[in-house]
């Protein structure tokens, strides 16, 4: 946020979150190894490791990609979003084991360079049943690698937010490559269709979640506000907004968050300066509007991050008439102090 960088921005909540991820991974891998030992005792250790890590990574990948749409559908999921990048980096570390051991087991025994072997040992690109599915996994792994090594905020600033965001959108290409890697790979290795079924269910769930969340956003933005006077638009009733929370309104294609805190209403631009997180879905913590995504903070009255931070968002005028909240979509320069609207006892009733 403009102050010194930390290696990992840990706090109590994030530590608990990370311990849970870690415990889940250990438990999963242990269960996988034990079950394989019981049911398929002839498998080699490498094979077990390759399969245990790949399936675990695929589970984590699905969870990670569901968090975004889930939080847009229901705010209860916000705590998951808070630390999403730790999930992503964990996923990469796990799948790196899968990739490395696969290359070791299938490509490092000959005298050809393992990476050359990965691409040249099978060139049946025209065949579905024999497709070199490992190459697909390799490219997915490269994308996850690039995302993991740039997950620190240092990279967000120094690659520029635009480049960073674009790079991280490649996760959807990586996901597609993983689906194909699994589908085409499993046809060759397995007769048991359970992998394919699980993968398909996962993929359909993800697509459905994204579609639901997407249409909800569009519906929200399509509300037409009919009552206007002196540049102000009637947006809602003061009771519709909870204390220390906001409601988001889309006026003239601009999204504005109206916050209720300390007996006043304040309006700020909805878009967080960090990674465009939705400020209107956050809450007021220690007197600051706190972004739900990574916790950047802004003062409600002027949209400025408290020192030493330097981020600023635009502010707007709000006024109250009776219990009606009127909002003016004309933006003030980022960081401009506004008086807000005082909620008198009469309004509140």
């Amino acid at each position: 946020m403009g102050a010194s960088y930390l290696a990992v921005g840990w706090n109590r909540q994030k530590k608990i979150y990370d311990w849970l991820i870690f415990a889940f991974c250990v438990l999963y891998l242990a269960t996988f190894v034990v079950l394989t030992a019981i049911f398929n005792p002839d498998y080699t250790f490498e094979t077990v490791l390759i399969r245990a890590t790949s399936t675990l990574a695929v589970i984590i990948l699905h969870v990670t990609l569901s968090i975004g749409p889930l939080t847009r559908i229901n705010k209860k999921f916000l705590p998951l979003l808070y630390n999403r990048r730790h999930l992503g980096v964990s996923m990469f570390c796990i799948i790196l084991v899968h990739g490395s051991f696969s290359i070791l087991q299938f490509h490092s025994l000959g005298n050809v360079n393992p990476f050359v072997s990965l691409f040249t040992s099978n060139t049946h690109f025209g065949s579905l049943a024999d497709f070199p599915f490992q190459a697909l996994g390799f490219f997915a792994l490269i994308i996850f690698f690039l995302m993991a090594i740039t997950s620190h905020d240092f990279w967000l600033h120094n690659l520029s937010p635009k480049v960073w965001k674009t790079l991280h959108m490649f996760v959807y290409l990586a996901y597609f490559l993983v689906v194909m890697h699994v589908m085409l790979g499993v046809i060759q290795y397995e007769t048991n269709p359970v992998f394919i079924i699980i993968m398909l269910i996962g993929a359909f769930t993800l697509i459905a979640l994204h579609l639901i969340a997407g249409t909800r956003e569009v519906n929200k933005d399509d509300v037409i506000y009919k009552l206007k006077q002196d540049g102000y638009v009637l947006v809602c009733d003061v009771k519709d907004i909870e204390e220390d929370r906001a409601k988001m309104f889309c006026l003239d294609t601009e999204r504005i968050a109206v916050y209720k805190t300390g007996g006043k209403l304040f309006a700020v631009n909805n878009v967080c300066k960090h990674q465009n997180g939705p400020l209107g879905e956050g809450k007021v913590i220690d007197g600051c509007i706190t972004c739900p995504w990574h916790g950047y903070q802004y003062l409600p009255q002027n949209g400025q991050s408290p020192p030493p931070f330097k981020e600023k968002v635009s502010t707007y005028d709000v006024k109250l008439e009776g219990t009606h909240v009127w909002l003016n979509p004309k933006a003030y320069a980022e960081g401009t102090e506004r008086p807000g609207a005082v909620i008198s006892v009469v309004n509140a009733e």
Partner: protein
Amino acid sequence: MSTMTVILAAISLYLVAGIIFTIIFQLKGLSKIDEGVNGSGWGFRIIIIPGCIVFWTGLLRKWIKANKEIIDPAKEHA
């Protein structure tokens, strides 16, 4: 040499250059391109090493730009 070998050699060369760059950059350039680096610990410096090796060309560009601004402060107002 097959095409694959040539591509692999090129990538290796790029990454070796990245490693050399990263050593010098961590010693001299890092604090110049981003004020947030001042006061950060060694954990932060370690965690960005892989990124420096891969994205070294971008960092080099930023570093050169930062140097120009120090030498020619008039440009800051442009």
